[in-house]
């Protein structure tokens, strides 16, 4: 199993480093949630990812003001595309994770792994 996690370096990337990372996870560091493109998420699935997470700051404390909101909108759009091409849109998720939320990061990743295992069983 492989999960690609796009992380804002101001927040989720720091949270990701606060404990053991599951072997399934590939972290991709971005300067801001606003940098992630629909293309990146779809390419991740194309290249064999079972799940994709986009983890950014809270919407109201994005360094670039609208970066997190844009990331969320793009994830919603990409979910629609996934739906159309027959991939469960739940395999793609956006969550806000601030820099001091290590436990939350691990919970989100664990939940996704759990969900994917159930889906494939």
């Amino acid at each position, binding site marked *: 199993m492989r999960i690609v996690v796009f992380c804002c370096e*101001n*927040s989720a990337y*720091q949270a990701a*480093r*606060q*404990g053991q990372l599951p072997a399934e996870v590939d972290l991709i560091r971005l300067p801001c949630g606003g940098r992630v493109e629909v293309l990146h998420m779809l390419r991740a699935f194309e290249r064999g990812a079972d799940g994709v997470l986009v983890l950014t*700051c*809270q*919407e*109201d*404390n994005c360094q670039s003001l609208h970066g997190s909101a844009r990331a969320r909108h793009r994830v919603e759009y990409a979910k629609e595309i996934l739906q159309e091409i027959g991939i469960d849109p739940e395999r793609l998720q956006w969550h*806000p994770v*601030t*820099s*001091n*939320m*290590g*436990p*939350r990061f691990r*919970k989100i990743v664990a939940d996704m792994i759990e969900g994917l295992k159930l889906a494939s069983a």
Partner: protein
Amino acid sequence: MKASALVIGGGPAGLGAALELAGAGIKVYLVEKEAAVGGWGARYVCKATDKCRQCSACLIPEKIQEVYQQPLVEILTNTQVVGVEGEAGSFQVRLQREQTLDPALCNACGKCLEVCPKGAIDRLNPWAAAYRIDKEKCVAFAGEDCDLCARACPTGAINFQRPVVNLDASVELVVAATGHQPFDARRKYRLGYGRFPRVITGLELEEALNEIEGTDIFGDGRKPLDVAFIQCVGSRDVQEGAAYCSRVCCKYALRLAGLMRHREPETQVTFYYMDIQTGGKGFAEVYQECRDDFAFVRGIPARVEGGDRLKLHFDGVSGQSFATREHDLVVLSVGITPSPDNAELARLLTLNRDEHGFLKGREGIYVAGTAAGPRDISESLAHGMETAANAIINLEGREG
């Protein structure tokens, strides 16, 4: 600017001051007595619900990263200031670094944790890259013969034979950002803290919520669903010598209550208060959002009794006549009190204290953050920056 500065304390005010000073080209010795920088704020939980509640706790790991990346800041952890001599523009400072556990060698593998009989080794905050030895709990520091952790350490990071190092430095200015002490809730015997396990402080709730997802903070499956917050514990209290408002408790308590309700929507929250303080940018909105979700009761209970449920008794003051109310968790919103180190610091740095015991600066020695009075995280950061800017201005004045 060719100058150097000593910043005492690595909490938000110290981090803010160190970054501001270094930004002006000043070499900074950032001294922290604990094993890691970050201060109290590093233990706090992110209180965002579905939106950011502006608690600023997330700024601390980011500021820590910034100071580590600032070449002009030299971070000295496990270090105490033992001597300061001279005057503004030319201080000689003596620092003492205790290095039983060398953080540079520690890779946080956890082998020492497993062997310690006293549970004296832990991480100061979740993202500290190294462990630390709690000197209060460690028996070796109490003089007993124990070096189990040192023998278990594969990298040689722990060594009880490593001597204390004395460091001397010449600095032009000193910023004391030595922080505060949360009010000791045991002093309020009648509120039951220390006697009933389900009476906790706001700080303990912060730490508990930081470690888990959900609200099962005691790990016994009994999620607190009926929570009481008692405000002004150790604030606005003349008997406790704290005739001031701690400025932070309404904010953190409302945010924590909001977070518990966000994690577990069935949680009922009751606030017992005198006056709710809603100052600070954006906080009025937070309060307005909370107001319909929580019950607000004017009046502080006179005593709390244990039992299966906690009983809060009111003594007839404040409209609550002699009522008794029940809750299954009581959170005491403890205030900010002057650090117990302030007397020693005042002696060491020749500073005065205000009527409450907070430190007051003097020429060349600046006081920033909660060492000078109650402040929240972002206010402490801003105060650190202001203090540093004033220090730079005075330095420019002396040079020009």
